[in-house]
């Protein structure tokens, strides 16, 4: 006995779309982490330029949060763990969520 093959491709496509949905890593402002430290973490962990790291750091500081990276779920989850290692307040969510 085999499963009817005509329904399989459709469900695989749905799963693939789920896997392809990008996730975002948000860093939230707090009054403890030093601006210099946050910039340093963005530069050393993500390899961002000084300009980009400083811009993201200021966004966190002034707007309360910033999208610091975007990618596949697994990558973003690993980056969140790294940010928590540094003591930054980071969360992740699907890119299409508010």
């Amino acid at each position, binding site marked *: 006995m085999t499963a009817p093959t005509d329904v399989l491709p459709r469900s695989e496509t749905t799963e693939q779309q789920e896997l392809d949905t990008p996730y975002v890593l948000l860093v939230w402002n707090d*009054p403890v982490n030093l601006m210099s430290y946050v*910039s340093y973490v963005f530069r050393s962990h993500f390899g961002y330029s000084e300009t980009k790291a400083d811009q993201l750091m200021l966004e966190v500081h002034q707007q309360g949060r910033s999208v610091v990276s975007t990618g596949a779920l697994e990558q973003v989850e690993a980056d969140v763990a790294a940010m928590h290692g540094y003591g930054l307040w980071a969360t992740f969510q699907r890119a299409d969520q508010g």
Partner: protein
Amino acid sequence: MARAFKSTPRGFTARLDSTERELLRGLFEDVATLLAPEDDGAAPGEEPDPLWAMVGMDPRTHAAEFAAPTDPAELRLLPDAVQGDQDASLEYRRLTETTLRERKIGALKAAALAMESSALAFDAAAANQFAQALNDVRLVLAERLDLRTEDDAERISSVIDAATVDDVDEYLALVYNFVTWLQETLMQALLGSL
């Protein structure tokens, strides 16, 4: 009196006197203790379950009663990873929290050990780890000081004279400001070397 971190051919160096080293060592050890799991799931004198150890998982995080920390300082060190979704946060916590605790405790213990010597000299990797340990100490002190807003930060940063300190909060604020100063000098040295 402490001398600030600077970038030198010998690495990232600073000097601390014996009182400062004693103070910092105590703080690193306290935060490491705060992060240490209460028990390893095994009865006293019993080895942890080898099957769990073999698959690299922690039975505590898979127990039915596993939950986010209740101590706000511990929660600040191990925050929820998904905003507004307790179930997703808890699931992430099950998979990552043990490793995160171990990593933080490792950095804090290395930092405590570095307090054996008055002359600190770190390579870039060790300096990065020392910065993490200083930051975790600051997060815990800030929580104990109820530091929530930029205004609180401003108020606390004005406590700089040891001679005028006359209660526990002012003493904690003074300690917080010292650790902040030391971390800031390390960050300037590290940023200058990137």
